[in-house]
């Protein structure tokens, strides 16, 4: 699928995955996986627990090294792109420091990402945590903590979002918020790779589902 609209993400580009294979502890999680994401695309990764969704996401984000396979961003090896921070990843950890307030946590990340002033306030407001900005994060509920993590996504211009069950700890309002954010991201030309237990829904103009399955044959 090609999109001709211009992305507001400076570094948005095509992600291509070729021949990705990873085995862990003698078990093959995925073999010779091939797919591509264009700017604005969404791919949901679905499958049973433990099938390798998280591992696949981490490979695409650059956190785990696959056994074989090639990832490219805009035709070039993705490693350089990873180093310039094209990927925003949200896994099972929210990565907040308990003894810092919500705002202080985000200010730290703003320093790391070299963001502009005022981004933190805007992000807090967007996720509905402005009132709790001075609260220590260990007092936040799981849903609020996840919102704060998602606020972090807004502090930078990462064109590729890799999210592992982002809505897991959320209530309905939270889920609606996430959906808004994801739609806005793809509308701006960002690419989206998600894993979820829930039924995938359409986001943006191109949404696909990649289902990981165990094959029945036993190897000798």
């Amino acid at each position, binding site marked *: 699928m090609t999109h001709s609209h211009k992305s507001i993400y400076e570094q948005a580009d095509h992600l291509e995955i070729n021949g990705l294979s990873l085995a862990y502890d003698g078990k093959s999680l995925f073999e010779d996986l091939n797919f591509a994401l264009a700017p604005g695309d969404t791919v949901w990764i679905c499958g049973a627990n433990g099938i390798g969704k998280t591992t696949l996401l981490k490979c695409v984000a650059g956190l785990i090294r696959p056994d074989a396979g090639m990832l490219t961003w805009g035709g070039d090896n993705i490693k350089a792109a990873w180093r310039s921070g094209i990927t925003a990843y949200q896994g099972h950890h929210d990565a907040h420091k308990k003894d810092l307030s919500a705002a202080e946590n985000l200010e730290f990340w703003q320093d790391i990402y070299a963001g502009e002033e005022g981004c933190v306030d805007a992000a807090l407001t967007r996720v509905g945590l402005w009132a709790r900005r001075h609260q220590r994060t260990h007092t936040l509920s799981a849903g609020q903590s996840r919102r704060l993590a998602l606020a972090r996504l807004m502090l930078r211009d990462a064109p590729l979002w890799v999210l592992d069950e982002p809505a897991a700890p959320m209530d309905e309002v939270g889920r609606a918020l996430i959906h808004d954010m994801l739609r806005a991201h793809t509308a701006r030309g960002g690419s989206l790779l998600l894993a979820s237990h829930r039924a995938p829904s359409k986001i943006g103009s191109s949404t696909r589902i*990649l289902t990981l399955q165990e*094959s029945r044959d036993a190897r000798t």
Partner: protein
Amino acid sequence: MISLLANPLRFKKFARYASPIFGCAALGLIAVGVWYALYNSPEDKLHENAVRILYIHVPAALISMSAYGAMAAASLIAFVWRHPLADVLARSMALPGAAFTVLTLATGAIWGKTAWGTFWQWDGRMTSTLILLFLYIGYMQVWAIIEDKRRAARIAGLIAMVGSINLPVIKFSVDWWNSLHQGATLGGPGFETSMGMPLYLLMLGYGCFFAWLTINRVLDSIERTKQKRTKTQRGASAVMEDI
């Protein structure tokens, strides 16, 4: 040659003739060396027959240090080129290397008892060798304690590399410290030229023995990995569809 041996199959072919060659060479060299050491070399003026323990001690010391260097070199190759067998090679050299280090310490202690009257002295050589033993044990423990062996390989490799860079630093520091506190007279046994032959024979013999041990340990490791891999039960597949 390094890339040739990367393939486990090729390594096994190499080992099929290399292992017996090293093994026989080891046996031969050590046998001749020991004969020379026991019957054909002069007694040390000061310490008489006890000096013969040095024929075991000095080559062992050499191998224990070289083995660590070899381990570090293999770790570097594994780290930079992600060469799969290099990790196995490094790990296989650890226990033999540590064993030679213990041999060095033990024979050194026996020599010390006959020469100075005490089993242990904190002189330059003994202290350096003890530190080397700590380095070996630390390396082996890292392999043991980290469950994910891919991770263990990289971390152990880093430890071997950092340790090997520090080896000359440690040696230099300990010798300097020793010269300040113990004086240089305590350590060195006298060497005569006719002592040279058995020493070189035994050094070579130990080296061959070490190579033989290492090759066989690598073979063992390859076998075990192959067996684990044949237990792969599950394949995987993926299906892509549009919403």
